[in-house]
């Protein structure tokens, strides 16, 4: 049972990394970014290449992989997302989907279609009440909690964070106070993408790696954001971990139904709390 809980939390942590960016992008720019997990996937593949290149220094490779994603997400923001401000949601959906289509194809081109195996970089276990718990997973959860604290600090204490919070309330108001909000939204977007890449990098050793991995995790992230509320930092945190637990518990009794259960939860939430977008 403890094992299930640890598993659940670690999945929740990964979902949190990815969903945060999605939630913020929607809250600030009102854009549904279908290509969000493209940076996730790119981060993973960059990691693979870097790990091979750096001969196994996982931490360094992980950090570099996340940084690699930054210019890519900047390009996406500058040329696609920015043009979608204020557009009808159908078009943002389709355009960002097109971006992910292109991106996945590029990945297939460079790295091929076959799955890459990767193993747990720590590989050690913690003895806890007679059970051996993988340290790596616990570490992921700790990082997620640290991230939550850091983000909270950022949005509550720094001026940039406060500007973003203000802009979430009243974008025009911020503009009329002389602040170029779009610039800050770009920063938020890139931050979100980098976090998604971080999620990918951390999850890579314990999941299967293939070019379409972005799609399945994207759907789950959407579910997290919908359940937690768009642009709601605390809500995203809670719903990520909650849904992570749902997946873990479902997997225990019905091994393949984990993802499906998340969607069922999402559907139920949508019935009782439909979003007005």
């Amino acid at each position, binding site marked *: 049972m403890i094992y299930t809980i640890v598993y659940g939390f670690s999945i929740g942590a990964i979902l949190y990394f990815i969903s945060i960016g999605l939630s913020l992008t929607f809250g600030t720019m009102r854009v*549904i970014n279908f290509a969000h997990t493209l940076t996730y996937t790119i981060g993973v593949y960059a990691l693979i290449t870097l790990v091979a290149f750096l001969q196994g220094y996982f931490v360094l490779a992980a950090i570099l992989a996340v940084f690699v994603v930054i210019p890519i997400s900047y390009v996406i923001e500058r040329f*696609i997302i920015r*043009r979608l401000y204020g557009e009808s*949601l*159908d*078009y943002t*959906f*389709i*355009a960002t*989907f*097109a*971006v*992910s*289509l*292109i991106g*996945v*194809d*590029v990945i297939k*081109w460079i790295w091929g279609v076959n799955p890459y195996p990767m193993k747990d970089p720590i590989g050690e276990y913690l003895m806890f009440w007679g059970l051996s718990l993988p340290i790596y997973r616990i570490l992921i959860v700790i990082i997620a909690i640290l991230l939550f604290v850091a983000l909270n600090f950022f949005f509550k204490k720094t001026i940039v964070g406060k500007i973003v919070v203000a802009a979430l309330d009243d974008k025009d108001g911020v503009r009329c106070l002389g602040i170029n909000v779009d610039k800050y939204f770009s920063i938020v977007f890139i931050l979100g993408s980098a976090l998604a890449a971080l999620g990918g990098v951390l999850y890579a050793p314990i999941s299967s790696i293939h070019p379409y991995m972005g*799609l399945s995790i994207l*759907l789950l992230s*959407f*579910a997290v954001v*919908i359940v937690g509320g768009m642009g709601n930092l605390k809500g995203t945190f809670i719903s990520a971990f909650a849904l992570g637990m749902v997946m873990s518990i479902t997997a225990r009794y019905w091994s*393949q*139904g984990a*993802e*499906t259960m998340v*969607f*069922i939860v*999402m*559907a139920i939430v*949508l*019935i009782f709390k*439909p*979003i*007005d*977008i």
Partner: protein
Amino acid sequence: MPLKNAPAKDYGAIGFLVIASGFLLITPILSTHRVTDFMIFCIFAMSFDLLYGYMGRLSFGHMLFLGTGAYGAGLFIKYINGNPLLAILVGIAVAGLLGMLLGLIIVRTTGACFALINLAFNHIGFFLVLSPLREITRGEDGFGVSASKLGFLNLGSRPIMFGFVLLCLLLVFYFLKRLISSPYGIMIRSIKEDETRVRFLGYNTYLYKWLTFVLAGSIAGLAGALTALNYNYVNPNAMDVNSNVGVVFACLIGGAGNLYGALIGGVTYMIISNFLPIYIHRWEMFLGFSLLIITFRFRKGVWGYFQGVWENIVKKKVIGKPIEEGVADL
């Protein structure tokens, strides 16, 4: 206030002849089997266009209904009765029933919510036929479908299948065309433009949306059933979530909200997806870029673009400045 998306001009019987001959003409170039495929996709595209183009709701999970129709028809033939017509009816019925049930929930949402919840259900459906229902559906492997002959109606024969599908396509086209220009159709298009206003006029928009959802699902089910019969085979690919991009692309390229556009878009997409991979290895990238270009430049689809150009030429000959409408309510 005049509706912005008026239905395609009614070319009457000539329209049918044009469509039929269009398909007949390309047959010698490709093959009967291929064109039948195209036509089935066009039926699917029209069902999607009803939902997206006319009612304005983008679904990213419409394949669910195609798959349901395919499995419905296929399983019927496999386990119950080989009668192809009955199988098709069963396929439509099952898809329609699913639409009725899911529609109750789904139709309450809009925009991104709508797209995503359809996507989620499509995903769930795909998973269901792949895994838990494996006993019945044979999971990933799928199963063969061989319909029995019904008098002269031997759907195993390619030319007959071709003719049958063409007939279905024309029937669906006719049905949808009548529907769109009927009061019901006007209601649907009004909902797309401004649902709140329609509701304030006292109409139960929920009912209309639900009905449209069921219809779109049923027609997609028809396409699915025809797929099963055409390939004599059903597997989870009939419900593949990724295939949704095809029908979205088709409607965009043809111009959403335009039945002729759906047909042209459908054929275009089929040609692209069937033949492009042969010449361009990275055809999905190409698809992605084209989608981007269409989204940013050709909103009304390529067809709509040319229609617009034509109208501008005609307008220049007539006269004058467009009349400006009155003061807006603030």
